[in-house]
């Protein structure tokens, strides 16, 4: 049987409705007590909401992932692409930084030597299958580069321009087995001919058999007429071993090139020789050994038992 209600029930309903209308009116009129109650409730609820948020965050994330599955996948794809692009940019930046360092060094060297240079990027390393050591640079005759010009890096001699095209040039590296350069020893000024051996090591053949060569001696380019193919004073390498065989017609020494040919990114072609020979001013400073601190321990003798008595 359905409930029919009575007067008491109706009265209660009316009272409740009037109360709610009264509350609405009070709130709409901006009574501060109502606002205060709401603010107080919210203040009390905040810790509960924080706890709820903390507890439900894994569930919420899961739900968000499920509801935004397609979008999340797209976002992941986009982020992966962005990540790849950033990695590539970072790599390019590292390469650019390395090239910048090389360029700075080569300009320093050229500046110190008074060389007028044209900077160029190495665009390809020549194939060594034909037993030659070459590289190609991105500057050619349009930039004032011609054959038989000295090519240097930040560390020293790289080689010589073998062929110059309009926008590129082929450089014969100092390590090429057919490469020859007139060289002198820094300090003693003894002269010789340095030839490439296909590796980072060259062989210096001194013209005077009585000169004394020491390991660690710096070798510089002697220079040619009008600075071509070699400008004077360019550092080549340092002596790593000396062959003093008795009875040898000439004295020879192994020389390690300052330039690491496999890591070349930026080089400079000397287009104009210096007005004066830089002599030994371009010899790289020898690395200073780091002093090892020594600790001296002095034992203090304890007083002898006899001195007490």
């Amino acid at each position, binding site marked *: 049987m*359905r409930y029919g209600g009575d007067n008491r029930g109706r009265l209660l309903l009316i009272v409740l409705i009037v109360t709610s209308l009264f509350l609405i009116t009070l709130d*709409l009129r901006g009574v501060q007590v109502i606002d205060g109650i709401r603010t107080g409730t919210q203040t009390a609820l905040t810790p509960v909401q924080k706890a709820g948020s903390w507890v439900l965050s894994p569930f919420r994330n899961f739900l968000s992932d499920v509801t935004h599955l397609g979008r999340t996948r797209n976002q992941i794809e986009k982020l992966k692409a962005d990540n790849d692009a950033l990695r590539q940019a970072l790599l390019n930046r590292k390469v650019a930084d390395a090239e910048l360092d090389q360029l700075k060094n080569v300009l320093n060297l050229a500046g110190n030597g008074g060389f007028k240079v044209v900077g160029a990027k190495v665009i390809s390393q020549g194939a060594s299958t034909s037993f030659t050591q070459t590289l190609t640079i991105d500057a050619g005759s349009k930039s004032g580069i011609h054959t038989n010009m000295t090519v240097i890096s930040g560390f020293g001699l790289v080689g010589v321009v073998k062929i110059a095209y309009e926008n590129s040039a082929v450089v014969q590296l100092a390590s090429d087995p057919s490469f020859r350069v007139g060289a002198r020893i820094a300090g003693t000024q003894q002269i010789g001919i340095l030839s490439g051996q296909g590796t980072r090591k060259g062989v210096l053949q001194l013209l005077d058999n009585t000169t004394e060569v020491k390991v660690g001696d710096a070798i510089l380019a002697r220079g040619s007429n009008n600075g071509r193919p070699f400008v004077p004073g360019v550092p080549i390498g340092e002596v790593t071993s000396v062959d003093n065989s008795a009875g040898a017609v000439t004295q020879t020494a192994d020389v390690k090139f300052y330039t690491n040919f496999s890591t070349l990114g930026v080089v400079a072609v000397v287009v104009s020789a210096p007005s004066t020979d830089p002599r030994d001013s371009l010899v790289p400073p020898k690395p200073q050994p780091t002093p090892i601190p020594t600790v001296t321990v002095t034992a203090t003798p304890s007083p002898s038992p006899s001195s007490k008595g």
Partner: protein
Amino acid sequence: MISRRFLLSFPIFLIIYLLQEGFVTQMRLPAGGFSLILIFTLAWASMSTPEIGALTGFGAGLLMDLSETSPGPVGHWTLVLILVSFVISFLSYGDDHVRANPLNIVFLVVAGVAGAQLSFALFGLLLGQELGSISQVLFICIGTAFWSAVITPLLLPIISRLHALVFETASRI
């Protein structure tokens, strides 16, 4: 007797309110989610006399009005829930055909949730509130009704037991 019922009912609704504000609203369910306190109130009302139903609606509505997220003035939800709870309890109380089948209660609760939301929107419009487009209001009403249809059968046994505990009635759904 009345004070005992009130003392027992109040903490139950307070806990439900805290669960709603602290946890359910944090879930950010799609299509509006569900309101635990709305479901609880209407299911409670469906098992009570119209007077108790109206009183339950009054208390629950007042709690909902105190929520900072409620867009209307204090009393807005109170008015809506008094009326809807009264109607729900009026329709169900004393009619054994309705109370005998839990599906009827679920249907009443779901209809009550949708009705309460529509009434809230209607009163809101009268009070000059901005509620968004009609399609948005309808979408949320339908979404909440859907969630309520999912949740109510799960909660109904608990609500029934608590109601029986407070009102010392033997009948349980």
